[in-house]
């Protein structure tokens, strides 16, 4: 009697085994709270010790990554939190994903770690294959080349360099002049460029000097750092819910488009490229409609301005498409798409061969990327495809959104956004103070969650976030909102 039943159960279990369960059979069923507040005493103590040698003032809690699992991050006190922040949106497949562990333990990985090549001079025999089977298989529509870098800032800055060199080469028609060769060594025109990159109000594109000059999210990111005096355009402020404000929002977008066009046409100097996030993430999860992005693409093409789409935070599946800009159905692909974070590898995609400078050693550095990260990116992409994680994220996002919408009828969940945009969801709180309280209260209920902008909360779970996790999150959120 028992045998067939057991057999039946195992079949049933198998049929209903989710991707998350297949990766993480031991994932906690719910948050586990060992201390009444987080950070707990051990976390506090370790953080104080760490503070002697590391700027620890931004620490949420000290983590135990060995014991973290799937959607749950473990801390030094043995708490397990459901993590919908996921290392500032940079964990793709959950903690300790067995497939990534396999890759990390492979001979290829060992080789990539300990024999790190100067890739452009001495590429490894398998680098083309690693790129082709991983990063390039994942390329957005219309892109077939990549330049690899090390971080989101680095990816954006190498894209800017490509943009500047592209435009100058087109204008020059031949060799560098003696005057250019001489003046550039004094950081002066004409060898140095007076072209600019245009970005948008509230955009975030990194914190090195070129990328920081395009970052416009918060003063604290920028204060005291010399910057290029580059122009910025307004990003639309849409009214929510979108379907109730279609006319107003269209007007707002048209206004921003006009201003954008007027800046690039009247700018005293050449705008080499514009950079924009599909959703302004650090700046508050600000969305614009496909119409806005389609028009931007037309205007950039008509005015010979390159379009760089910064998918550092939005890329790799969370929006319900592999690349968020694929939601926009652009009339032609962007010129460059930058990536980092969840992909672990960083860089920019492109297709126009003229975005490779006319000579070698111009877009160049010692390492030109990191094969160990390219290997991880390859596994991430292959797993995303194998388990259809993009579509799953789209559908779990819809579930999450509709439940949040219901909660918004009862509680102060303002300007809920990210409908049909996977789990890339955010909303506003009444003010920064209330946001702070809500984030803290959720953490003490076992949810690790992050803010963005001045008073918003953003959801950034990994791609293995499923309905059961959504339910736990939603119920904790409702409790926290009730207590406010």
């Amino acid at each position: 009697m028992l045998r067939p039943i057991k057999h039946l159960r195992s079949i049933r279990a198998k049929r209903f085994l989710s991707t998350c369960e297949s990766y993480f059979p031991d994932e906690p069923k719910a948050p586990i709270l060992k201390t009444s507040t987080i950070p707990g005493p051990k976390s506090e103590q370790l953080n104080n010790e760490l503070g002697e040698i590391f700027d620890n003032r931004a620490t949420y809690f000290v983590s135990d990554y060995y014991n973290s699992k799937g959607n749950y991050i473990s801390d030094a006190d043995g708490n397990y939190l459901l993590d919908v922040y996921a290392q500032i949106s940079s964990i793709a497949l959950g903690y300790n994903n067995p497939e990534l562990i396999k890759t990390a333990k492979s001979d290829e990985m060992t080789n990539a770690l300990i024999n790190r090549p100067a890739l452009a001079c001495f590429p490894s025999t398998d680098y083309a294959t690693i790129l082709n089977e991983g990063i390039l298989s994942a390329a957005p529509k219309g892109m077939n080349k990549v330049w690899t870098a090390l971080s989101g800032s680095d990816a954006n800055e190498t894209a800017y360099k490509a943009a500047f060199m592209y435009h100058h080469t087109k204008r020059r028609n031949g060799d560098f002049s003696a005057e250019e060769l001489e003046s550039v060594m004094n950081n002066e025109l004409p060898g140095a460029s007076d072209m600019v990159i245009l970005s948008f109000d509230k955009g975030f594109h990194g914190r090195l000097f070129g990328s920081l000059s395009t970052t416009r999210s918060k003063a604290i990111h920028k204060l005291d750092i010399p910057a290029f005096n580059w122009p910025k355009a307004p990003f639309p402020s849409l009214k929510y819910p979108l379907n109730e404000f279609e006319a107003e929002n269209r007007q707002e977008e048209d206004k921003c488009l006009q201003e954008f066009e007027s800046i690039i046409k009247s700018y005293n100097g050449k705008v080499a490229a514009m950079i924009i996030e599909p959703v302004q993430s650090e700046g508050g999860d600000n969305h614009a409609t496909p119409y806005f992005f389609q028009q931007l693409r037309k205007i950039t093409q008509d005015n010979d301005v390159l379009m760089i789409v910064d998918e550092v935070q939005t890329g790799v599946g969370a929006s319900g498409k592999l690349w968020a800009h694929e939601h926009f159905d652009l009339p032609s692909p962007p010129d460059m798409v930058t990536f980092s974070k969840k992909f672990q590898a960083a860089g920019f995609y492109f297709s126009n061969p003229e975005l490779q400078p006319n000579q070698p050693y111009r877009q160049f550095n010692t390492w030109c990327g990191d094969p160990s990260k390219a290997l991880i990116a390859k596994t991430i992409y292959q797993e995303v495809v194998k388990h259809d994680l993009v579509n799953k994220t789209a559908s779990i996002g819809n579930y999450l959104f509709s439940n949040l919408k219901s909660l918004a009828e009862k509680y102060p969940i303002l300007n809920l956004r990210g409908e049909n945009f996977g789990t890339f969801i955010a909303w506003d709180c009444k003010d920064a103070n209330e946001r702070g309280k809500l984030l803290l209260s959720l953490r003490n209920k076992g949810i690790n969650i992050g803010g963005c902008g001045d008073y918003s909360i953003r959801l950034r779970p990994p791609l293995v976030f499923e309905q059961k996790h959504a339910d736990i999150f939603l119920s904790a959120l409702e409790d926290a909102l009730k207590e406010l």
Partner: protein
Amino acid sequence: MATKYFPNEPTGPKVVQFPGPISTAKKESLHKVFDSRATYFVVDYKKSIGNYIVDVDGNTFLDVYAQIASIPLGYNNPALIEVAKSDKMINAIVNRPASGNFPAEELEETIQDLLAVAPKGQNQVWSGLSGADANELAFKAAFMWYQAKKRGYATAFSTEENDSVMKNQSPGSPELAILSFERSFHGRLFASASTTCSKPIHKLDLPSFNWPKAQFPSYKYPLDKNEDANKQEDQRCLDIVEDLLKNWKCPIAALLIEPIQSEGGDNHGSSFFFQGLRDLTLKYGSLLIIDEVQTGVGATGTFWAHEHFNMSPAPDMVTFSKKFQTAGYYFHDPEIVPNVPYRQFNTWCGDPARMILGGAIGKEVKSNDLSAVCKRVGEYLYGKLEALQAKYPTYFQDLRGKDRGTFIAWSFESGATRDKFLTDMKQSGINMGSCAETSIRLRPTLVFEEKHADILLAAIEKVISGY
């Protein structure tokens, strides 16, 4: 150590055909997706071992370039293989943390391992991802420090600063400069490229900050026969630095310099010159940043090259990358940490996988005293090169790097001869690199020993004697 690490290291190079057909084909196919125009040859890293790099055609080269001076302990070093396979490494790779927000329990230990080899006088470190990144993070620290000095470390930002900075305008985005030197190389991102001054090709068509350049001494060689002239040259350059610190159109927050200008031609400066810089930066309230990206981690015979100069007090920041595999800057003044969090910040704040590797490299170098090995081998190599110089003076101009371990370079009459020499050396089984217009530089690993030096020297003499 080479024998202990690599019992199966080849006993010499072997050139089958160079450039080989497989390498050429693979270079072309890589170029379809990744710019490979700078490729020397395509490498089989799994077969490379110790001081020998093996290409896909089965050519085996003695490697004295070592991935542009970035392989510390030879290819496939067993101690590093062990670290790469450790649980700590696997954990760091698959669970890469946003260390500023969610530091790992083991982060402190990881950082302590980097601090264990900190330059004298430094006790803090901030991690980055590359040399350019390390330098730019150091610039940011310098600018924030400079403004905090003016404003008061604990003083809040003014409304005007908060507003103007969002438009990239002063006073929030202040006009401040980093002073660097002609012929220097500090990286290729926008601010680091603004301090780089080695070759136009590194800089052309990029917007740059209009920051000043001082002159780096150009010595007459041999040093011991030109002491007076070189001292005068030091003073001439120090006077230029002082003039810029006093009179540049905006304040100079920091002075940035390599202990040996590497990409720019292996240009050396004396202890007198570096102490002079230290004194001037103190006098004018600027920070001194030493860029040890290429010179650091043992190759000059001390762990950090600037330790040869015995500067007092210690420099304010020391940047590193390359051979350390991890990148960042060391410092010691607590006010180099900005006054509030999230100012020196980014998603990852370094890469624990690379930091762990850096810690392990530091331990291997220390416990096997590989800096001393470099010193010893360097003396041997330099002596033999001096002998060759006496024999073939035209091909060994301005031999430099005495008492600087294996960090040795010399110049040719012309770029054309130099380039021919490099090609001929490859045919003889030596992978070697150039710097500046007419120089070659030796950048072997720290496990390069007398027997490797003998192979290198024999190949050099064979090639040169044919000219």
